[in-house]
């Protein structure tokens, strides 16, 4: 399930960075990097979730690469914002390279690495990451990831003036899911009710991520020429591949909750 979430996040990054960097005419050759690396991450995720044909060390190498490239990408995007007139201001936050976006690659890599750690052990309930029980660590991590994605959707929807009321959904549903997941990360052991509330919100967030593709497709139809002019409007309109990153993180959080249940047991 975690490998699957990694693959899904990788796919989302691949499609999104391909469209956005094409829009930026691959002005800097480095802009090809996330396409290659997210494809690698996706492959690792698919391999991990299905046959596991690759040796674990190779798969982990792929995930680690993803984690590192995501971090470097954040650096590049920050540089792109800061070198523009005005530096860190609203205009550049709206239209320069999105600072937070590459972090999705790091998330995908980290989730994948955790997945392999968990698969290796026969006692996932005793496994620790950075000295923290893995269920708690992953819950906290995915909650943070969700909030990061909320920030990006919030910024972009603010740029779009929340012109459609449904644009409020990704800034209202996922924060609740993230808060509940964060609560699962820090609350004392012994909660054995299965956290139905948290799970429901996460499933809702996951479904919203898929529905978001439909909303964004509608957004494309409202641009000049609509879908008849898809070659420009898919590039320039609301990004079709972006919303499923909510789904990927929500699924990772659901997997983390399972580990939390084991730890509680």
């Amino acid at each position, binding site marked *: 399930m975690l490998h699957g979430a990694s693959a899904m996040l990788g796919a989302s990054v691949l499609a999104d960075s391909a469209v956005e960097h094409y829009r930026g005419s691959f002005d800097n050759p480095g802009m090809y990097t996330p396409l290659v690396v997210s494809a690698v991450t996706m492959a690792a995720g698919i391999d991990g979730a299905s046959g596991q044909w690759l040796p674990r060390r190779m798969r982990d190498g792929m995930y680690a690469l993803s984690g590192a490239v995501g971090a470097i990408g954040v650096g590049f995007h920050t540089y792109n914002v800061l070198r523009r*007139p005005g530096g860190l201001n*609203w205009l550049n936050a709206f239209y320069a390279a999105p600072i937070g976006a590459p972090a999705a690659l790091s998330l995908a890599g980290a989730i994948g690495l955790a997945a392999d750690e968990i698969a290796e052990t026969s006692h996932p309930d005793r496994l620790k990451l950075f000295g923290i029980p893995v269920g708690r660590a992953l819950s906290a991590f995915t909650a943070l990831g969700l909030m990061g994605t909320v920030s990006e959707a919030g910024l972009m929807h603010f*740029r*779009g*003036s929340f012109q459609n009321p449904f644009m409020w959904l990704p800034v209202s549903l996922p924060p609740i899911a993230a808060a509940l997941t964060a609560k699962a990360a820090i609350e004392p052991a012994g909660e054995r009710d299965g956290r139905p509330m948290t799970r429901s919100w996460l499933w809702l967030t996951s479904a919203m991520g898929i529905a978001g593709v439909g909303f964004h497709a509608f957004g494309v139809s*409202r*641009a*000049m020429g609509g879908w008849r002019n898809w070659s420009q409007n898919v590039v320039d309109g609301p990004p079709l591949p972006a919303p499923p990153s909510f789904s990927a993180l929500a699924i990772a959080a659901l997997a983390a909750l399972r580990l939390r249940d084991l730890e509680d047991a």
Partner: protein
Amino acid sequence: MSDFEASTPLARDGRAPNVFREGGWTPMRQYSETEEVDFAIVGTGAGGGTLAARLAEKGFSVVAFDAGPFFRPLEDFASDEESQSKLYWLDERIVDGADPLVMGGNNSGKCVGGSTVHFAMVSLRFRPEHFKARTLLGYGADWPVDWREMWGYYDQVERALSISGPLSYPWGPARPAYPYRPHPMNACAQAMAVGCEHMGMKWAPMPLATVSAPRGESPPCVQRGFCRFGCSTNAKQSALVVWIPRALKAGAEVRDLAMVGRVELGSGGQVTGLHYHREGAWRFQKAKNVVVAGYAIETPRLLLNSACPDAPDGLANSSGLVGKYLMTQPNQGVFGRTKEESRWYKGPPILCVSEHWNYCDDKNFPGGYTLMSQGPMPQEWVNIQVGARKLWGSDLRHAMLDYNHMVGMKVVGEGLPSVHNSVTLADEVDQYGLRIPRITYSWTEGDKALIAHSMDQMQGCLEGANATDIFRQEQDTNHLNGTARMGDDPRTSVVNPDGRTWDHPNLWVCDGSTFPTTGGVNPSLTIQAMALRTADRIEALAARGEL
């Protein structure tokens, strides 16, 4: 559109063009010519279009006339500068004075929606002190309205047009965040921003009347860049796509290709209706009120052409000020070359603004001005090369090869009111048999000081942005104002603060010609704000039985 089509009105038979659909129609209420409508409005631009919508929405019967055609932008507007000159008022005029104005694209429009159909969408507010320039700053004239009231109407217009602008505006009193987010700044605007920082001036993304996200039937702006030649996507929030559809929906009638030639004065100083030319014949529409909204040339021309035995010097002209105090705005530019490709024609032509010299009073000239980035289309650019630089032949060709590397700035300045600048009637007549306007204009010494100052500032900005081969376009003007100025005193003004003429209680003016001063910003937002105010005042007066 062929000549034949352009001579055939489209708004008739109970329907008008639907601007949002190719070949589409929208139902339109119609009034008979013998029915005395509440308001006959001459002109459908920023003043007339806005007022028609608001008066109709308040329940008045309204017929609005425009001399030009009713376009559907989606099918009628080409990506072609030459073809789009059909949007301008290019009828014959006589220009004279020491600095004769160039009439056309920069200062006129002849179609339903008026010049807002091809304006650069710059939507700025007057500095509060500019409404009391005489009292507070010692030049020009005072407006007979309070700035706080006007700023309230600015709020309304900005919401009605969903202005895309910055979240916080660097100059003047606090204002609400603009309804839509600013557009991205192109390379030319970024160069201006760098230059402003070099010169110690603040800058901001320009507040523009083109949407950065979908709004109703308007798609978001696609940065096509032909804004000043007619937006073919309807992202631009012109009177044609904002106010005219609202007017039609509220029951107003729009008559396109209807040239109003004379307002009829009845007994007791009241006007009774207007004579207009449509489909090859002169017609008469009865009206309880007539509003003239033809802008600073056609408004005084109509009032003067309506002279009759009871008003031998023209309507509303007992003060002798109809046609006087014509103002324009300096529109000089400075341009330079950058090493990196700039492709400055991308996006709306003006994307960066600095109002530094509107709000800073430490200067050696009267009035204020706004600086803005500038991205001319190719033909405009050729005209600047030929006109301002006198290039021709291989020099011209060589200069044009640098088109993708150019950056530039323009000023929109506060031209001072002078009683010597005027619109009068010439003896020649036009195709309707109406006497054509003579437009007399000369810069004042104050204007010349402002222009020189602004060009030095622009040059400093471009140098600060590392532009090379910098040159100046020393002669250019744009918006017009004045010629039917408003005031508190019937002896020194043509209309009162409501736009009502002092001489004829049911004759009104609603356009830029009522401006006592031009302010240092583009006038369209202020014209629309005044139209909203006039509509509210008319409603209040009607409720009190004082109409």
